């Protein structure tokens, strides 16, 4: 079995130790780290995402795979010159102010990580200003806002309004999601993207990032 195949298997198994071991072997053998990410990690991540969509695996397994992915990346990324790092994008995510539900957001964060995004998860009950402050600090491409209650959806609009008021709306892609959130709501509040499920959200994030890079 090739080293890249071994790496993807470790991700699918959610085996952090194995992922680190194979990543180190790849480095020791002088194999291309970018290729390892694309042909090993990403292949594994894709399969994990598909298995989760079909509920053949569940959130704990998904998070273990995301952890394994991150651990392998920690070994591989230092081998790659800065400009060549195949990072999909930087995302700041969290559950909006007044809302303490986090399972959907955790799934989304795990799937983003497994798909090569750098994710800063701000947790739950996050005020509008905190999202923006953190997004600026880390140079985020996307601010992703989760809300699980009809009573907290308004906070998603508040973040967008806050960005507009600060003259920073165009700096970030804003995505929304969560149980009561609909496509219609996303359009109404001027969000750039919406995902009914976490995997749809990841696909939308990838598409939006690509579009943004093309425009730039």
């Amino acid at each position, binding site marked *: 079995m090739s080293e890249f195949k071994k790496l993807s298997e470790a991700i699918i198994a959610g085996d952090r130790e194995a992922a680190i071991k194979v990543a180190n072997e790849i480095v020791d053998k002088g194999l291309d780290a970018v290729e390892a990410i694309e042909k090993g990690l990403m292949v594994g991540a894709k399969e994990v995402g598909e298995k*989760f*969509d079909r*509920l053949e695996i*569940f*959130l*704990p397994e998904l998070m273990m795979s995301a952890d394994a992915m991150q651990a392998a990346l920690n070994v591989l990324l230092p081998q790659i010159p800065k400009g060549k790092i195949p990072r999909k994008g930087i995302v700041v995510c969290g559950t909006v*102010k*007044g*809302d*303490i*539900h986090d*399972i*959907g957001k955790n*799934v989304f964060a795990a799937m983003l990580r497994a798909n090569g995004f750098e994710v800063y998860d701000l947790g*739950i009950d996050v005020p509008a200003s905190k999202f923006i402050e953190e997004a600026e600090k880390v140079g985020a491409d996307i601010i992703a806002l989760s809300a699980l*209650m*009809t*009573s*907290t*959806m*308004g*906070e998603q*609009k*508040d973040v967008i309004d806050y960005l507009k008021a600060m003259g920073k709306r165009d700096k970030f892609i804003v995505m929304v999601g969560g*149980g*009561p*959130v*609909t496509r*219609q709501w996303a359009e109404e509040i001027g969000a750039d993207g919406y995902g009914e*499920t976490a995997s749809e959200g990841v696909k939308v994030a990838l598409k939006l990032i690509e579009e943004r890079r093309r425009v730039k």
Partner: protein
Amino acid sequence: MITLLDVVERALTGRSCYEREYNNVFSSKLKEVIKEYGIKYDPNTPIPSDNTLADDVFQAALDFYLDVGTYCLDTGRIIKFNESEIKDALKTSPSQLLFGEGMDAKIMVPRTPESKISPWCFLGAGGAPVSSEEVFLKLVEGYASIDIANSITTPALTSVRGMRIRPGSPLEILGTIRTIVLAREALRRAGRPGLPIMNALATATAAVSLNTALHPNYGLRETDGYLIAITAELKTSFDLLNKVCALQSLGYGGICSEYGPVYGGYCGGPEGTVIAAVAGHFMGVLVYRAGWHLIFPIHINYGCNSTPELLWVTSVYAQAISRNTHLLSLHLNYTAAGPCTEMCLYEIAAQRLAAIPSGASGIESLGAAKATHEDYTTPMEPRFAAEVAHAIVGMRRSDANEIVKKLLPKYTNKIANPPLGFKYQECYDTLTGKPSQRCLEIYSKVKKELEDIGLEFKL
């Protein structure tokens, strides 16, 4: 007896642990008890008649909750109870509760699998959002006009004078007050002023909103029901405990712990979800001193609980609780499809067939179209749910299983992309409050289909 002060003390002094660690322990302990007790989901039997399975799930949930306890989000500590505390709380929890006033006062009682006791019918919107106070009034009047409604679940107002409600803000307090004032007015208009409101109150996310609305001037009553959420999975917070504190201080007996374990989340599969659902009852009686319980297992991708796996979860948790305790436990259903669609009615029938013959004390019906779209709720679907629930009183689980197996092929392939259906304003004459011909035709067609496969409608 475990008091609220005991709970708070444990929340302040219990074992400290990061939330992530709690989530991991939650998942791994679930896997352990599933293995130890040999709990296994059978896709061919959405409604099992296996008493041993139900009792094993109950025992597994007890072992599980003893190990994991409840996580307090504010203190980052685990609130734990020992076995005798759990068993004492189950023993001393009320076996009946009185809700409502005057002609609409009624006692909620527990049921057992295949019981001939009529189920409690808690009907309405399941907290679904509505666009205006006018729609809210019409809907609640419509729900209260369902003769077999024992209590009402109101919709959620989303704005106050055009301003969208924000949690914990004055808008939420004002929205909560408006909700109760309008709901009481709608019940008066329906001629049922004593009917209890039992989702007090969907608009009140923060304790400050509920606690303000408890002032007697606004119309909430001691005989209403009060839903206190268990945050998934088995977590609480000081804000939730603050609601409990206010209600207990006033001596209100209608506290309900409401819990939606997430299938596909930290619970894992159907086996973990059913154990978490049972454990949620233990948390409810201990942490909130809840007198009744509302369970709504939910699908992580689809946001409904009409999938075959979740029908099994519904059936097995209801059997586990009703065979091993006298707790008052209702099931809340969320459909994928929206109002005025055949699919929505098939889902409702399957969900009620899973809950009622399995011993659920009653139903809350319903969150149509996952209760996420403004105004996509009508009185037709909850009426249908209650009629089905009454029709299947005394039905054997094995018979319910056969009927559900005939219903599942009618909708399961559409769950991922369900029909949204129609808004209240499109389904009902807003002046007369009467359903459209289209709604009536769909309702009659599906009822006839159900009669053809074994249901006998009594009401």
